């Protein structure tokens, strides 16, 4: 009985993989096919057609099952702790937070406003100075975001106006070096806070 159940599970797993692989090949009739050698690839090896699909099967599965790492690897060991302890505040660099929906990830030009003068002898600062001279930026990986499937339309600005502290949702950054996802922002988290602050819990307040 156990053997049969295992076999069924394996068969199911194989079937899921087969269907998923086949589904990747399905395009509109007449569109260029992925496996057509005459069709040139995009420079990044992405699909030869305009598509909203995920870049990889793995990414699609991760998003489907809602898995997201807490520790996000970054290309540069930026320390929030150092900057905040020197008196900088979040809005110095995340300038969009007070004016629009997104806080924004600052580019190297923002870093160099201070670092063209400060700590210029440090190897890491020299590294980013060189990058700026070449016109290159950090390829930061996103720490916080919502899955598109959750249809959430979040705006920072109203939260800042309502005096919600950054740390409420992002943890105490002064204790963090490279940013990590300190708070799991699921729907319960948002709804609880909205209840406490007597903010609207109407579906359309957050979802579209």
């Amino acid at each position, binding site marked *: 009985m156990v053997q049969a*159940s295992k076999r069924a*599970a394996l068969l199911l*797993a194989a079937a899921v993989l087969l269907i998923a692989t086949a589904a990747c090949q399905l395009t509109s009739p007449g569109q260029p096919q992925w496996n057509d050698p005459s069709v040139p690839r995009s420079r990044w090896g992405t699909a030869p057609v305009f598509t909203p699909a995920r870049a*990889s*099967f793995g990414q699609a599965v991760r998003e489907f099952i809602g898995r997201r790492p807490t520790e996000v690897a970054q*290309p540069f060991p930026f320390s929030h702790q150092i900057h905040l302890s020197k008196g900088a505040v979040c809005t110095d660099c995340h300038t969009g937070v007070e004016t629009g*929906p997104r806080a924004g990830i600052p580019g190297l*030009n923002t870093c160099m406003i201070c670092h063209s003068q400060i700590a210029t002898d440090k190897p890491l600062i020299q590294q980013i100075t060189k990058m700026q001279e070449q016109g290159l930026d950090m390829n930061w990986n996103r720490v916080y975001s919502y899955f598109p499937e959750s249809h959430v339309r979040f705006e920072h600005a109203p939260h800042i106006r309502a005096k919600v502290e950054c740390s409420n949702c992002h943890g105490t950054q002064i204790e963090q070096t490279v940013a990590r996802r300190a708070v799991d922002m699921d729907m319960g988290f948002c709804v609880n806070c909205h209840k406490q602050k007597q903010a609207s819990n109407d579906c359309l307040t957050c979802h579209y």
Partner: protein
Amino acid sequence: MDRRNFIKLTAITGTSAALTACGSPENQIIRFIPEDDLAPGVATWKPSICPLCSAGCGVIARVMDGDAEVFRNGQAGVIRMGLAKKLEGNPEDAISQGKLCARGQAAIQVTYHPDRIGNPRILAGLRGQSGYSDLTWADAIKGLIAQLDKLAAANDHGSVAFLTRPGHSRRLELIADILQRFGAKPPVTYELFSDDVLRQANAISFGSHQLPTYDLANARYVISFGADFLGTWNSAVAHSAAYGRMRQGQKGMRPKFVHVDARLSQTAANADEFVACRPGTEGLLALAIAGDETPQKASERTGVPVATIERIKREFATFGPSMAIIGGAPLAHTNGLFQASAVNRLNEVAKTVNQPGGISFATASSRVPTRPLKEILDNPPKLLFIDGVNPVFGSPGAWKVADALNKIPFIVSFGSFIDETSALANLILPDHSFLESWVDAAPESGSAKAAPSKFGPVMRPLYDTRSTPDVLLEVAKGLVKPLTGLPNTFEEYLNQEAKASKPVPSPKPQAPGPLQFAEPVFDGDASQFPYHFMPYASQGLYDGSLAHLPWLQEMPDPMTSGMWCSWVEINEQKARELGIEQGDLIEITSTQGSVRAPAFLNPGIAPDAVAMPVGQGHTNFTRYATNRGVNPISILAPATIAETGTLAWSATRVKIARVGDPDRESLILFGGATRERPDWTHGRGDEH
């Protein structure tokens, strides 16, 4: 499955997902410093002008921050920048009035197309045999200046020609100005679906060498002779909006719309009454409605019953303001000038010219003198510039455009894509997309008043491209004998007051006299080639210049629901008689050659005609259009309209033969078939 196995399965899937995540390409890409003036997540709307047809619709582009694949300093990478994400009609624009057609919606793909040329290229060896190699703008401009200096040194300034699309814009004025200062002849223009014959007829009838604007909103009776004014002809967005007001905006009445044609187009399907008329005789029907011809004689030639003609004549005279429109196939016969003049006569009889509910002419902007394509086919220049036009694809095979271009020693293309014509270029200097550059338009129709517009770039350039007028200005100043009196940039030129250039004289209106029916001449003997061949402008791909945009390939044709393919429309009844079923492979043969495409059985086409959408059949035009379908233009006879020299693309007769069974890939339909079933009063086969 029990819980344990479910967990196991989830673990397997999770592990595979994690493994796939390793080596994720986004960790390795090069990222450039983002633009400083970005407000993350905040959209702004910036104005521009749709470049996809000559209507000149004003658009607004929604611009937001986003990641784009770009070239910077010769390096490919990703940058966060303000990107145009969506186009809509500009509510402040007199032409688009806040609306936009499907083609305009897809114009955004021009900028982000994966096959767009991102930097200058030079032919590495022999034309047609070798590929291209990249070069810098400095080298490209230096090479071009050397070519022009060589011709100037030999006092051979006249051997330089500039081939572009016709249209009214200050961009074309500047190009003509540069050519004139260099000593070259005016620009050469070519457009497959040219309306020059209508302009000519309007010049003769009304003294205005331009397309009319139709005040549909105030008309009570409209009769259209083949004009697809709701789809692809003239200023389709402006006229669609006016048509909506005509249908729903006049309180207490519903104006009547009659459409005369040999094929049920999208516009015809909107009509209250469809009148089937033999191709090439529409002008005679117009004369009969105007009262200049007897209904009996008109009926004999047109195939329209006498009673119908008399009724329409009565309605047209009674339910004013009445208006007549001609466009598309009826103008593309060898007697196009007669056809247009006859419809103009009908408008004169209706007394609605320049009146509410009639045709009118916007204040004409100065018209740039141009030359026809034939001039460079007969006398190939030594240096040719090609700007946004593809005559190798869009002209009959018999014109042998490719052979003529191959005789030209040096060709420079400003195209953003390799197509059949730009593939013959020695040097490719890619233009910015319209969203990345200064644009302007002076639409000749669509608004009762002149509505010129100019706008700056919506976003920064993605690639190492340059605005064509700016490249020409740079070249003009780098010559051994620099051209003087020119502005520094195109932006500066646009912001100068338009000079009062000499208008091209239009012929004076003729005194109204009796018009004589001019017989249309068809290529191919009716006994051997029994069917009229009706190529028509595709709703999505237009004249084939938009076949590279996948949204438009994917868009089902409104009448047949065909997509991503070519098809031959044949009368349903006639097909049954011939034993042809839907999807059967049909060979269409003219005196010039043959093409094969699947049959689409259509009750909306005359029994003695077959029709094909233009647009497919490219041999070299990006990954989406290359080797897809067939090009009906290639088998057209080289018949021209004598008075204008433009192609009479409706003047070809063909024969058809069933040559194969349906296959699953040739005919791709989104949905069902055409519902409307007009009553065909001619062409049932008894006259041949």
